[in-house]
């Protein structure tokens, strides 16, 4: 049995401890904001926070979350007004939007660690998150904009 918190609520899971958090969150907890994109940790669509740090939930098992705090896009800010979310809206970043939960969680983690990232640091931190619509120019600008407000 793994016990952890999800967006501040206590949770436990006694199923297969090898279950990726992605599928636990989506199929068990009903939190569908975290997206499945590749299942191999190479696209970033499923990015969540484990104790505040961005991880790929498709390759992070429930067992690995034992005793830790899981934060998903739904729990990033109670009103959805985290500076990163606001910056995303200000610059109209999304096109299809599917990758954006992961992008936002990655950016929020980056800014929690480094409140004034350089352009290269933003590029490096965000390069694991794919966007097929090609919103990178605005994503980069939105991280920069949010950095002023974190």
């Amino acid at each position, binding site marked *: 049995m793994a016990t952890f918190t999800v967006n501040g609520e206590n949770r436990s899971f006694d199923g297969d401890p090898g*279950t990726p958090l992605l599928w636990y969150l989506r199929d068990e907890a009903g939190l569908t904001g975290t997206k499945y994109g590749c299942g191999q940790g190479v696209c970033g669509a499923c990015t969540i926070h484990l104790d505040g740090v961005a991880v790929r939930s498709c390759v992070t098992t429930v067992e690995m979350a034992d005793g830790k705090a899981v934060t998903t896009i739904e729990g990033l800010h109670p009103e959805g007004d985290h500076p990163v979310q606001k910056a995303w809206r200000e610059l*109209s970043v999304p096109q*299809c*939007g599917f990758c*954006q939960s992961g992008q936002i969680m990655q950016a929020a983690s980056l800014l929690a660690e480094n409140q004034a990232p350089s352009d290269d640091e933003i590029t490096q931190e965000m390069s694991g998150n794919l966007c097929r619509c*090609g919103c990178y120019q605005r994503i980069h600008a939105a991280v920069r904009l949010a950095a002023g407000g974190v």
Partner: protein
Amino acid sequence: MLHYLKKEAEKAERKAAPAFIENVSRRGFVGGALAASGLVLAVHIPGASAREKLTPYPTGGADMPHGYGSASDPHVFVSIKPDGSVTILAHRAEMGTGVRTSLPMVVADEMEADWSRVSIEQAVGDEPLYGNQDTDGSRSMRHYIQPMRECGAAMRQMLEQAAATKWGVDASRVRAKAHKVVQLDDAGNETGETLGFGDLAEAAMALPVPARETLLFKTPDEFTYMRKGETKITDLHDITTGKAIYGADIRLPGMKYAVMIRPAVLGEKLKSFDPAAALKVPGVEAVHEIEGFHEAPRKFAPLGGVAVVANSTFAALKGREALTVAWEPSADHAGYNTDAFFEEMSETSKKPGKVIRDQGDVDAAFANAKTVFSEEYRCQHLNQAAMEPLVAVARVADGKCEVWAPVQSPYGAREDLAKALELPIENVTVHMTLLGGGFGRKSKWDFMIEAALISRKVGGAPVLLQWTREDDMHHSFYHTVSVERIEMAFDDAGKVTGFRHRTVAPSIVSTFAPDSGYQFNIEYGMGFVNTPFEVPNVRCENGQAFAHTRIGWLRSVSNIPRAFAVQSAVAEAAHLMGRDHRDFLLELIGSDRILDVKALGYPEDFWHYGDPYESFPVDTARLKHVINVATEKAGWGKELPKGQALGLAAHLAWHNYVATVVHVDVKADGTITVPHAVTAMDCGFYVNPERIRSQVEGAAVMGMSHALYSGITFKNGAVEQSNYYDYEIARMSNFPKVVDVVLVDPQPGRNAAGVGEPGLPPFAPALANAVFAATGKRLRMMPMGEKVA
């Protein structure tokens, strides 16, 4: 179970053409200069600024399946509650273009609604009611701007009429304005009397829809939302908070989760399978064979295979891993190797092919040439690879079928679901969720039929069928593989006297009809027969190539290889002749003129993106203009440090004139980077410049993906790539850092072109031309690789 497809295949054989081709406009084109219709007459209303009558111009939207339906009817598309809140239907699929915002915004603007009081409702698949819903081919705005403006204008006039009746005044004494109707006095001044839309809703909706010829439209200077680019997409808050609902986010009581295993090679059939180990996996509830359809043409039929149904996605995946499955080999396609196929296509391209366009005497031009240029350009297969893998939720019970899916063609899917399940179509409902990208793959509904078949196998429980990324890579409808050969003959004065283009590529037709090895008019119309060069002798030939996988369409389709080939060849020929590339390209396009396509020897069945030629005549001045705008903005001719250069390409597609300049910086280790790109676009009338810019920025990134990274290869009939680690797309670590988009101001009479796709084709050749200018290395294969050797 899938015998309906057999019937369709027989039908297709008789007609030798897929159903959707039948729906394409085949009306003859009108030669010579013919200005399109447009703004004709301004009508002044006392005390108010102008409204105008607009003469409608025909588009191919009327010839699409079910035409426009009731798209101009406010009774269908608009509802107003007594509290004044307005709901507008969005009938096209939202996959990132912003259409779910842009089309309702057109209605809201014309009817004078306050956008903050408008909510959007997604329509179900019902083309007889809403009009065609095939959200591809850059058609949504191109075909629906007019009906949506009509819908909004009609609603406004109905509200005004209702107010006039209530007040007992003439209709000229009222005017809709910002969600209410105001009363005017004799002098046209507001009297202070107003009625809100909510107060008028019931009476207005009881009125008949005004005739088209009585409608008055807002003049562009009166637009509140259109053309401003200030309206945020309607799903923006939900997307940034994880609340937006995509295909896999549907949750129904008692829903099961399923995955499937499918044959790796086209034509392989299930021989046997052993479900025992899979059924032992905790959570796995059932394992079923899902019948496929194995005779070409397969259209969008399921490939067949085995489904594992479980109480969670992860259990289903574990169950699939435990399955033992054996396949009967494919007689026709197990020998498909793309490396060898390229060599065959190359040989074919060196010989004369089927002549599709013939103008002047090309043979004489080449025989008398002083200099001849000849090169071939290759493109690998591509996969759409939208971030959201295919997924559908289906419930087939009690003689009814209900499906929720990220689908570009909800009504086509509904028709095929009805046939596959042998249900009357009224018993089938298709809900469109948001699409996590589409790019053409989600126009094909095989995954929805699979989900429905699985639901039926498990007794009608709702089933979420999830495709994995690997499934998406292995079982797509791929963008074709191609060789394009471009040849030019130069006379003593260095003028181009002959232009020959040979295209060799498996055709999309093979998915719908028996494969002749030849392409068809839609593929010929995408930058093959219609290269707008002023050259006296032109021949376009098509060499045979047979399909060994399911060929589909991907954003901008055949324009990808054509723009790459033609625009690379022009730069190469310019270099060969010692000419500046821009000057040479402008000279090839030649004089300012409206093309007389009949005189130019275009084929009788020339496909002009399904639209009547006279509504979108080709104007070379517009193409030259965007070339000048893009090159000037980018600083064409400026000195750049070693390893850096500009490259240019221009392409006309979906009636949209696009020129792109790519600035490359080739690093010391050979890595190709793009610090800057400029795209100038003349798309005619437009309503949402902000979403045009976002799509052009995105097209640059996708263009870079195709140019450098992405390629699907086949070995022994099977796809060699499996996920984003070996089918790479551009990441933030290397993408066009700054993309400037310059939109040409809309001019009267220039009708709304398609926008979603045309930004893509020029990027790769512009990049290749820049790499050559920077390094002297010419890249003639897409993908080219990230590094110049």
